[in-house]
């Protein structure tokens, strides 16, 4: 069966690609008969001349490098997480000693759950708010305002800055005495709103009785989310803008002729067509959220404290400060699984729709 596919594949390559299908229907199978009478010998010689083999110098080296350094490293990390590797003695890697001890330890570690909770809060609120902000900006910019290109550049610019830069100046922005945010709030007479954004908290009072609402609400993680939002909503805007530009003008006109209000037009006609933009922007943003490590590390060092600790900072501390290599690996595997659950549905969806 597989040789059959292979042969047909080679035939197809020789024929120079798939037949053109102008109507979107099934093309007539012209290649079926063309390859029908070729024997095994000619199939081998055509294998040598096939694109896949002749292009091997181009795709094979990166394939092997990726396989070794990315997938090899991931597999090795999983192996380490099954050992008891700690301190400065190498483990034996004897499969009979492999166990899930480190995962058990993680699941019974309060700090791990705090970091997991923060990771998900960061992931969900950052992605959701970035998408909303990006969509809003994209619609505004798409309304044909003056200096459109200029605004587009301004909004996208933060995206080009490194986390290290943005983390340092957001630390200055959040300074209670001299930070820009509090200076602004005081300037417009809102002194009582000015807060210690990185260490402060408010008592949620009666709201604390609602499930999932904490008694004390710490600003720290949301200060981080806000800074990341500032940096990444420009990216979401660009993705949405491309999506908006792909929608033909006729549809706007038709909606207007039918008497739809602007709100209704966007809600019923435009937004449903931005699904693909939303999904692809969301995946990229989620992956950025999982990589927020550098931002936190520059802001607070390797230990941001329970109010902003995420899995990646915890993994770093356990592995590189405490020498608990196996435990750090186990946390890394959990983080990897989280990343997979973010990316996999997207990839599967694309695959289902034949876009991959």
């Amino acid at each position, binding site marked *: 069966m597989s040789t059959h596919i292979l042969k047909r*594949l080679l035939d197809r390559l020789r024929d120079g690609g798939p037949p053109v299908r102008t109507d979107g229907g099934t093309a007539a199978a012209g290649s079926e008969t063309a390859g029908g009478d070729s024997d095994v010998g000619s199939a081998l010689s055509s294998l040598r001349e096939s694109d896949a083999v002749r292009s091997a110098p181009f795709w094979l080296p990166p394939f092997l490098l990726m396989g070794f350094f990315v997938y090899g490293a991931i597999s090795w990390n999983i192996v380490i997480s099954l050992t008891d590797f700690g*301190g400065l003695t190498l483990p034996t890697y004897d499969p009979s000693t492999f166990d899930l001890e480190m995962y058990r330890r993680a699941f019974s570690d309060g700090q791990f759950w705090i970091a997991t909770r923060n990771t998900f809060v960061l992931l969900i609120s950052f992605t959701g708010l970035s998408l909303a902000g990006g969509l809003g900006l994209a619609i505004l910019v798409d309304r044909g305002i003056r200096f459109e290109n200029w605004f587009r550049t301004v909004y996208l610019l933060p995206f080009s800055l490194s986390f290290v830069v943005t983390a340092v100046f957001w630390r200055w922005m959040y300074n*209670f005495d001299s930070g820009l945010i509090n200076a602004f709030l005081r300037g417009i007479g809102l002194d009582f709103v000015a807060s210690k954004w*990185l260490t402060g*908290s408010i008592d949620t009072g009666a709201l604390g009785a609602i499930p999932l609402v904490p008694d004390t609400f710490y600003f720290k993680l949301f200060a981080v989310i806000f800074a990341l939002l500032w940096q990444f909503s420009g990216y979401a805007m660009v993705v949405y803008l491309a999506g908006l530009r792909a929608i033909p003008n006729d549809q706007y006109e038709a909606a207007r002729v039918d008497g739809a209000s602007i709100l209704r037009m966007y809600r019923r006609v435009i937004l449903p067509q931005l699904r693909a933009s939303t999904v692809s922007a969301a995946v990229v943003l989620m992956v950025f959220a999982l990589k927020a490590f550098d931002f936190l590390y520059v802001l*607070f060092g390797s230990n941001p*404290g329970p109010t902003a600790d995420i899995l990646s900072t915890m993994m770093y501390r356990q592995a590189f*400060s405490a*020498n608990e290599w196996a435990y750090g690996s186990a946390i890394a595997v959990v983080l990897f699984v989280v990343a997979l659950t973010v990316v996999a549905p997207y990839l599967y969806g694309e695959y289902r729709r034949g876009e991959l």
Partner: protein
Amino acid sequence: MTDTPDSDDVSRRTYLKLAGGAGTATFLAGCTGGGESTTESTESSGDSESTEETSGDDSDSSTEYNALEVQHWWTGGDGGAAVQALFEGFEEQHPDIELTENPVAGGAGQNLRAVIKKRILNNDPPSSWQAWPGANLQPFTDADKLEDIEESVWGHNDMKNAYLDGPQEAAQPAGNYVSVPLNIHRLNNLFYNVEVVEDAGVDPASIDSPSALVDAMATVDEAGYVGMAQQTNSAWSTGQLWAQVLLGEYGADVYADVTAGNVEANADAVRDSLDIVKQYSEYYPNDAGSISWQDANSKIIEGDAAFFHQGDWAAGMYRGQDGFEYESNWDHVPFPGTEGLYSLNMDSFPMPTNNPSPEATKAFLRYVGSVDAQERFNPKKGSIPPRTDVPQDAFGPFLQNQMDDFSNSEAQPLSIQHGLAVAPDALTAFEDAMASFISNYDVEAAYSAVQSAFQ
């Protein structure tokens, strides 16, 4: 099945399958080294092994010193100038030893520590490296990665008489000498701005305990100044501060007992000292959460704040500030309640096993333990020598006073935050405890976190 019309279209999926299959096969062949295709590579790797062996033989049989490789994280500022002075001195004494320094900057040594661990695990250590001595080296001694240098190094230069007990204890994390301390930064300091405390009417010298410092800060606060210039952006300064409070309020014995793991036996002391730190936090600057220790220290220099607790590296900033002079503008007392104690933060150079240059390393470590080395290094670094017989001429007035305090100290407690008293895993857990503590100042939670960190 393959003849159905749909499968006629050889999709991208099929390409991927084939590519994946071919890739996996190649990859597996590469891993197992069993296939014909890999014979060649196996041979070539065999060749390279044999060349390594011969070159190894060559270097072993030679009687000259092997090249010395020393790693450190002093890449700039005071530390950079100091370590260059040290290396110059060594090269003057040993022109026959080739010295390569291999600095790794960043992360207050965290980056270098990662490099060293990797090299030790790969059995490829440098000749020596900058390391906190004491319990910080415990993972190395546990894995038997450090060599005993009692005879070869500590037996020279009268080292055992010249070093006080505290530094000697730190050089023996597992009961034998494996490292040579080079410098000491004191941790039980309280710096203050002279004008501010005079204006507020507080006499720092009369504050006799950490709890009395709370009252002094309240007085300063009423006079309109920040009581204590502390940073809470990251947890380490608070870890340091808590240790000095425990030391000052309850003494060196309780401190040593707590760091040895007996937290429960000293539960009241630990709780109370955490509570004192909590009271201090009322007098921190408003922006404590978003500043570094240098920013905090600037508040002393600018006259906004009265007191500052930090290691004595903070004095380096005063030294660099024109018109801000010792005793007239800023001054120093031992942290309240810790008079007669000299709380240690040290750097040292250990001797790894499987050393690439055993003899040259011993020569280097003997030099590090000598008067000449410590006299060159420490004035530039702004630290004091662990040897008590180093002449004071090269040091400024502040460091001379510190050296006198050190020579006359009754005990030299080992630092927690800088790895001398607790092993790295306990230190990480302790830092977690402090990171939680500065976000909510929950004394009870911090107590149980410290207790589980040290046990």
